[in-house]
C-alpha cells in the first residue's frame, strides 16, 4: 500500500513546528500504524534525514505510551484502539494521513510527536492511591466485595493514562482520566476512608496542572481506547460536591 503522510515536525519545545510531507511506500497490508512509521523512518535515515520522533513502548495497547492524533482523532478513528494496535488494513491505498501530537496546554511538545504527560503523574500523586503500607494488609478474603462492585472498579481501573481524553476535549479537560481513578478507588471498601480527600486533592492537582473544565461533550469517551465510561465523571462530580460540603461543615 502507498500513503502520503502529513507529519508535525518540531525540533524541541521552544521552536516552532510545521507540517512536513512524506511518502509511505510499499507498506504491507498487515503492518501496524507504528510499523508503517518505522518503515518511513528507515527511509528517512537512509536518505540522511532526521527520523520522526514518536512515543511508543509495549505495542500491545496497554502501557499507554503511544499517542498521535491521526486525521484529527487521538489514536485514529478505530473505536477502542490505541495507535499501536491500529493496523493499515483500515486505511485505503493512496490515502493522505495527517499525524499530529496530542495537543493540550498541559501536554507541552518535547519533540515532533512526543509530548510531556507528567501532569498525569502529579494528579495521581495528589491522591490516586490507597494509603496502605506494605505488610499492613488483612487477609485478601477478609472483606467480601460484590462481583458487580469489583467489575465496576475494574472497568474504571483499565484506564491506561494515555491522555487521548485530554487531546480530544475542546477544553483540554482531564476529567475522564481523573474520574476513572477516583471512581475505581472511591467505590471499593479499601479506598473509602480517603474518598473525600482523594476527590478534593486530585481535582485541585488537575486544575493546577492547567487542564480545562468538563462541559459534557463526551469526546473523551468517544476516543478512549479502553472505552472508559463518562459516567465516571458524574460520579466524581458527586463525590467532589459531597466532599466539599462535608469540608465546609467540618
Amino acid at each position, binding site marked *: 500500500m502507498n500513503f502520503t503522510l502529513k507529519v508535525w515536525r518540531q525540533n524541541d519545545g521552544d521552536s516552532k513546528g510545521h507540517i512536513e510531507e512524506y511518502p509511505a511506500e510499499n507498506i504491507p497490508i498487515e503492518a501496524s500504524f507504528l510499523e508503517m512509521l518505522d518503515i518511513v523512518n528507515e527511509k528517512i535515515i537512509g536518505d540522511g534525514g532526521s527520523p520522526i520522533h514518536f512515543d511508543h513502548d*509495549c*505495542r500491545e495497547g496497554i502501557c499507554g505510551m503511544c499517542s498521535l492524533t491521526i486525521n484529527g482523532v487521538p489514536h485514529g478513528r478505530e473505536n477502542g484502539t490505541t495507535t499501536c494496535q491500529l493496523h493499515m488494513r483500515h486505511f485505503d491505498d493512496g490515502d493522505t494521513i495527517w499525524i499530529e501530537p496530542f495537543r493540550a496546554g498541559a501536554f507541552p511538545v518535547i519533540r515532533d510527536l512526543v509530548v510531556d504527560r507528567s501532569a498525569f503523574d502529579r494528579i495521581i500523586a495528589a491522591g490516586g492511591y490507597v494509603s496502605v503500607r506494605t505488610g499492613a494488609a488483612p487477609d485478601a478474603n477478609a472483606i467480601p466485595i460484590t462481583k458487580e462492585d469489583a467489575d465496576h472498579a475494574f472497568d474504571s481501573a483499565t484506564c491506561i493514562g494515555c491522555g487521548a481524553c485530554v487531546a480530544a476535549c475542546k477544553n483540554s479537560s482531564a476529567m475522564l482520566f481523573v474520574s476513572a481513578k477516583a471512581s475505581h478507588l472511591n467505590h471499593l471498601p479499601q479506598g473509602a476512608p480517603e474518598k473525600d480527600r482523594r476527590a478534593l486533592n486530585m481535582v485541585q492537582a488537575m486544575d493546577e496542572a492547567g487542564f480545562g473544565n468538563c462541559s459534557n461533550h463526551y469526546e473523551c469517551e468517544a476516543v478512549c481506547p479502553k472505552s472508559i465510561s463518562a459516567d465516571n465523571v458524574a460520579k466524581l462530580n458527586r463525590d467532589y460536591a459531597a466532599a466539599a460540603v462535608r469540608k465546609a461543615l467540618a
Partner: protein
Amino acid sequence: MSLNLQSAVPSGPIDQKWTKHKMESRLINPTNKRKYSVIVVGSGLAGGAAAATLSELGYGVKCFCYQDSPRRAHSIAAQGGINAAKNYQNDGDSVSRLFYDTIKGGDFRSREANVHRLAEVSVGIIDQCVSQGVPFAREYGGLLDNRSFGGTQVKRTFYARGQTGQQLLLGCYQALSKEISNGGVQMFSRTEMLDLVVVDGHAKGIIVRNMVTGEVSAHAADAVVLATGGYGNVFYLSTNAKGCNVMAAFRAHKRGAAFANPCYTQIHPTCIPVSGDYQSKLTLMSESLRNDGRIWVPTRSELAEKIRSGEISAGDISEEDRDYYLERKYPSFGNLSPRDIASRSAKEVCDEGRGIAPTGLGVFLDFRDAIDRDGRDSISARYGNLFEMYEKIKGENPYSTPMQIFPAVHYTMGGLWVDYNLMSNLPGLHVAGEANFSDHGANRLGASALMQGLADGYFVLPSTIANYLAEQEPGSVTESHPEFSRCLEETNTRIGNLVSANGKRSVDSFHRELGLLIWDKCGMARSSEGLEYALKRIPEIREEFWENVRVPGSGAQLNQELEKAGRVADFLEFGEVLCHDALSREESCGGHFRLEHQFGEDDPEVIDGRTQAGEAKRNDEDFCHVSAWEHTGVGTKPKLTREPLVFENVKLSIRSYK
C-alpha cells in the same frame, strides 16, 4: 581468582530458613534509616514495589525509569495472572506444593531456598494488592476467584481479566506515587542508566542520561538496586516492549557483576505468528487461554498444505483428522503443559510440515468446544479483551475461526547472579525481578513472574538490604569521588562515538540481523555447530556496527536513534555471553534445548515409559549448577564460575507431564 559466589542460604529446615533469616538479619533503627540513600533502577513490579516499600521504611530513594512515567513499565503487559498458595479453592494447594511445582517447572535448575521463600511470601502479596484496591476477579459471593495455569494441577492463579499485570502494576505505581508525594521517593522518568559506578569494590552509584535534555549526570547512593527486566529483545522480535533492554544489567556485568544462566530463555507457546520482515514485535496471547482453548494441527501434512494455501479452512477438517498433540502426548496436563514443552511440541509439528499459518509456522488454538460447552458469553467474560486484541492484529474473529499461534521469545530466566539476600557478587548491588536469575531455574511457570517481581520488591529486598546497609557509613561516597567523573567521561565518549560513526546502516537493521541470528542458532533448538557459527558472526556484526551505524542528530536532546544505538551496542556484546553459556551447557533442560541431548528410542527411560523420545535430557551429574559468567573484555570469552545446586528437599527426577 574465581568469583566469590557464596549463596548465603541460611541453615536449618527449608520451611524455617526465611523466618530464621529475617530474625537474624540486621536492623537499622528508624532514625538512622533516613540517613541512607538507595538507588532503584526500573519501576516495574520489582522496582516500583521496592522503591515504594524502601521509602515507607524510611530510606531516601531515587527511582529511575526510561519510560515517560513509572506506570508504563513492561510488567503492565502481563496478562494471565499471579500465583499464590492461598488454597482458597480447597484443592490441595499449599506452600510446599507451589514450591515443588516451581522447582519441577524449572527443571531442577533453581535454588531450593529461594524458591521456597517465594512460595511462602506469595500469600502476603495477594493481601497487599487487594488492600491497595487491585480489582481482582471475584465470585458472586464476593470472594476472590482463581484459575489454573500451565504446569500445575491446582487453581492458584489470581487474575484481573486478561490484564492482571496492568492492575498489579497500577497498584504498585500508586504506592510509589504516595511515596513520591510525601517526598520519600525522588522519581526520574525518561532517564536511562548508562553505567554503574563501583568504588573500592562496592556499587555506589550510577551514570544516567536525561533522555529529554541529553544531560548525562552521576548519582551516588549507599546501595543500588537493579530491577530492569529481562534481555528478550536480544532476539529483536519478542513479546517485550520495544524499549526493554539489557543495558543496566550488562553495564553492571562489565563492572564486575556475574551474569548467571543467560541461556535459560523462555519461548512462550501462544503468540501471534510472525507474518513478515516489517514486523516490530510479537504479541502474546495469554496462557490462560489454554484453560479452554485446544491446540491442534491436522494429522497429515497434505491437509495442512491445503489450509496454508487457503484451499480449505480449519472448519473443513474432520475430528479424526485433527491432532490435539498436547492432549495426546501429555494426557495429565494436556493443553496446560508447561511453556517449554508446549513450545517445542509446536515446533516439532511445524517441522513435520503440519503447520497451518501461511509461513508454515503456526498451530491452531481452538475455542469451538469451549463455546459449545459454556456458551459464547462466558468465554467472552473470561477472555474478551484477548479475543479483541487478536482480532485487531490478525483481522480474524476467534469466536468463529480458531486462533493461529506460534512460540515467541517472552521471558528470560537468566540474569545477574544474586545470593539469598538478592545481592550480586558486587557488594551493594542488588538485583530484583526478571533481572536476577534465582527463582525460575531453566523454565518459568505461567503466572510466576508477577509473583516473583512483587515478592522481591515488597517483601524480600526491603528486609535483606539492611544486611548490607548496616555495615556502611551512610553517605560515605558522594558524586565528588573521582570514579564518578571517570565513568561520566567514559559515557560521554561512548555517546560521542555513536553519533559520530556516521555510517550507512540504521540501528534497527543491525538489531534485526543480530536477532535473526540468535533466534536461528540459540532459539528453540540449539546445537554446538550453530552456536559456534553465531559466536563467529556476532563479533563481525558488532565490528560493522561501530564502523557503519548511522545515528542522526546529537546527544544534546531527545534522540530515539541514539537510545536504540546504545542498547543494541550492548546486545551485540551480550549475545556472545548468551551463546557461550548455551554452548557450555551440554545438556537440555527447560528452555535450553540442545539437539545433541535428547532422549532416544533406545534409552532405558524411554523403554520403561518414564519419558518419550525427543524429550529434553538433563545431565545432573555434570550440570546441576548455576553457570555464572565474569566479564573479561569485549570479544574475549567470559570466565565461568559454577555455583553447585544442592537439592535437600526435592528428589531430582525426570520431569514428566505425561
